[in-house]
C-alpha cells in the first residue's frame, strides 16, 4: 500500500514533506527540465522585496569544505515583476508555492504580506527575518526576539494565509526567537537560514566575497541545523520546517525524527537539480520498506 506522505504546515496541505529552499531553486521554472515539479511538496520562491534589488557586487559565492558561502544580497525581480512574470507559471504546476520575502522596515514586511495575500497562486508566505532593520540602525530582525515579533505581528495582520517565519541560526538562543515568533502569530517556523561566515584569499589578501562575509550553507552545517530543529521543535507547538545541508532522503528523515514536519532542500539542488525529487521518491521507498504507513509517525520520533 502506498504510504501517506502528506503533511500540514498551518492550513497548507503538502503532498509530501519535501520542499525546495528559497534562493536555491530560482522561481521554480528553471528546474522544470530536471525534475517533475509536481512531485514536490512545495516550492519556496527566491526572496522577494517590494522593489527589484540588485544584490551585491561579485564575487558572490565561494566554495568551502562541505559547503559554500553566498552573499547574493537578495537580488530579486521585486513583487511586481514576480506577479507579472513568474506567478502565471504557477497555474501550470500542481504543487504548493510559498513566497519568501523580506523588508528593511516592519512596514515593508507588512506591505509585502498584503500584496502576497492577494495572489491566489501563493499558498503561504515565508518571512525571512535575517535582514537588517534600517530604521533601527541596522539591528537584525532575526537576532532580536522583540524585533522579530514586531515583524510577525505586522505580517499577521495583513494575511490570513499561513505565515512561516524563517529563523536565523546566528543567535545564542534560537528557542527564544522561536517562542517570540509563535507568540506573535506565526503558523510555522523554518529552521535554519545560513550561518554568517567568511573566506579569505591568501594571494590577494582580500576576503573572497565582495561583501566580505556571506552565509554558509550545505552539508557542513547539517549537524548545527539538526540541533536547532530539535531544540525548537521541542519548545514550540507549531510545525517546524527543517533546513540545512539536506542531500539525501536519509538526511531529510533525520530532520523529521528531530521534530521537523517538513524539510527544504537548498544547496543540494545546485549539485544535482533533481535532488528534491529524488528525495521524495526515496522517502516513499523507505516508508514502504520499513512498513511505515504514514510519514507523520516519524515526526519527532527521536528516542532520547
Amino acid at each position, binding site marked *: 500500500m502506498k504510504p501517506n506522505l502528506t503533511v500540514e504546515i498551518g492550513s497548507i496541505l503538502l503532498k509530501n514533506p519535501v520542499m525546495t529552499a528559497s534562493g536555491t531553486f530560482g522561481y521554480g521554472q528553471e528546474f522544470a527540465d530536471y525534475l517533475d515539479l509536481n512531485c514536490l511538496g512545495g516550492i519556496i520562491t527566491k526572496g522577494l522585496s517590494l522593489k527589484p534589488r540588485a544584490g551585491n557586487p561579485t564575487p558572490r559565492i565561494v566554495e568551502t569544505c562541505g559547503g559554500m558561502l553566498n552573499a547574493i544580497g537578495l537580488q530579486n525581480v521585486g513583487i511586481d515583476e514576480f506577479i507579472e512574470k513568474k506567478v502565471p507559471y504557477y497555474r501550470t504546476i500542481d504543487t504548493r508555492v510559498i513566497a519568501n520575502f523580506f523588508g528593511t522596515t516592519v512596514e515593508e514586511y507588512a506591505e509585502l504580506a498584503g500584496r502576497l495575500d492577494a495572489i491566489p497562486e501563493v499558498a503561504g508566505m515565508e518571512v525571512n527575518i535575517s535582514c537588517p532593520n534600517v530604521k533601527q540602525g541596522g539591528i537584525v530582525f532575526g537576532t532580536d526576539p522583540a524585533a522579530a515579533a514586531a515583524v510577525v505581528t505586522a505580517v499577521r495582520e495583513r494575511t490570513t494565509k499561513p505565515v512561516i517565519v524563517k529563523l536565523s541560526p546566528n543567535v545564542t538562543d534560537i528557542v527564544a526567537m522561536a517562542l517570540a515568533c509563535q507568540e506573535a502569530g506565526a503558523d510555522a517556523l523554518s529552521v535554519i537560514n545560513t550561518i554568517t561566515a567568511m573566506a579569505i584569499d591568501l594571494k590577494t589578501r582580500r576576503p573572497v566575497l565582495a561583501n566580505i562575509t556571506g552565509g554558509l550553507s550545505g552539508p557542513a552545517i547539517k549537524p548545527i541545523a539538526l540541533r536547532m530543529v530539535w531544540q525548537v521543535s521541542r519548545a514550540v507547538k507549531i510545525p517546524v520546517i527543517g533546513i540545512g545541508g539536506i542531500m539525501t532522503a536519509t538526511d531529510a528523515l533525520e530532520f523529521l525524527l528531530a521534530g521537523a514536519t517538513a524539510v527544504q532542500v537548498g544547496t543540494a539542488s*545546485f549539485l544535482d537539480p533533481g535532488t528534491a525529487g529524488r528525495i521524495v521518491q526515496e522517502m516513499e521507498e523507505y516508508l514502504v520498506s520499513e512498513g511505515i504507513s504514514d510519514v507523520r509517525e516519524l515526526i519527532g520520533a527521536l528516542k532520547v
Partner: protein
Amino acid sequence: MQFKSLVISNVELSPGYWRMRMTAPPPFAGSRPGQFLMIKVTEGADPLLRRPFGIFDTGTFVTQFTDCGSQTFLEILYKVVGKGTAMLAALHDGDRLDILGPLGRGFTPGDPAGEKILVGGGIGLAPLYFLARELVGTSRVRLFAGGRSREDILCITEFERLGVETYVATDDGSLGDRGFVTQVLEKHLLSAKDATIFACGPMPMLQATAEIARRHNVPCQVSLEAFMACGMGACLGCVVKGKEHRDDHPDYRCVCKEGPVFDHCDLLWEKGEGGNS
C-alpha cells in the same frame, strides 16, 4: 540534460593541460560551440560544487561493440589549477562522471561571408576549437593564441589541420611573438575584411580585445568565466555587470544562463577593481 558519462580517454597534452574524452547521450551532438558543462568530479562532498568547463569538441564514433552502433562523445580541454581539476586529471578510462549540459548560450556564427577571428588566451582556447570546426566550413578563420610560455599554447596543430591560420604570442617569447596576443591581433586586424572576433581567455585579455574591437568597430563576442554554483540561473552567484549597470540601476546578467558568451557591447567594461574585470 543531466547524464552519467564514462571517461574514454584522459591525456596530458602539455604539463598541467589535459584533454579528456567521454561518452555523451546522442542529443548532446546538438550542442553549440561556447556552451559549457557542469561536471561533478567526485561522488563525495570534497569538492562539493560542480566545476564548469567549455566544450572542446563533440561528435560520434563507431564503437567496436556490434550492438552499440555509434557513440556520441564530448571532449574537454582543461588546466589543473586546483582540487577539482587535479581530481579530473587522476581519472582513468571507464571512470564515471556526472555531467549537466550543454548549458548557457554559445557563440553566434554570424554572417558566413566575413572573416572569423578567434582570440584565445591559455586555456581559453578550449571552446574555440569546437567553434573553429563549425566556422571553417563557410568562412576564413584565423586564430590568435596567447599564453605565458610555449607550454601554454595548446592544440595549434589541431587548429591548423582544420585549415585555420594561426598566430601565436607568448609572454616570454618562447613560441611565436613575444608579448600580448592582443598586440598581434591589432596588427593583423587592419587587413581583415568584415571580421568578427570570438574571444575566450583571462579577463585582462578579453578587456583588451573588447577595446580593440570597439576601436576598430568590429563585432566581438567574448566568453566569460565566473564562480558558479548551479550553472542554470538559480543561485545568482555568477553575475556580471551589463552595459546599463549603474549603482542605482542594476543590470546584472548571469554568466551561466545569459552567457557565457556575450556580445562585448552588452557588458560594462570597467577599469580596475570591483567591476567585471
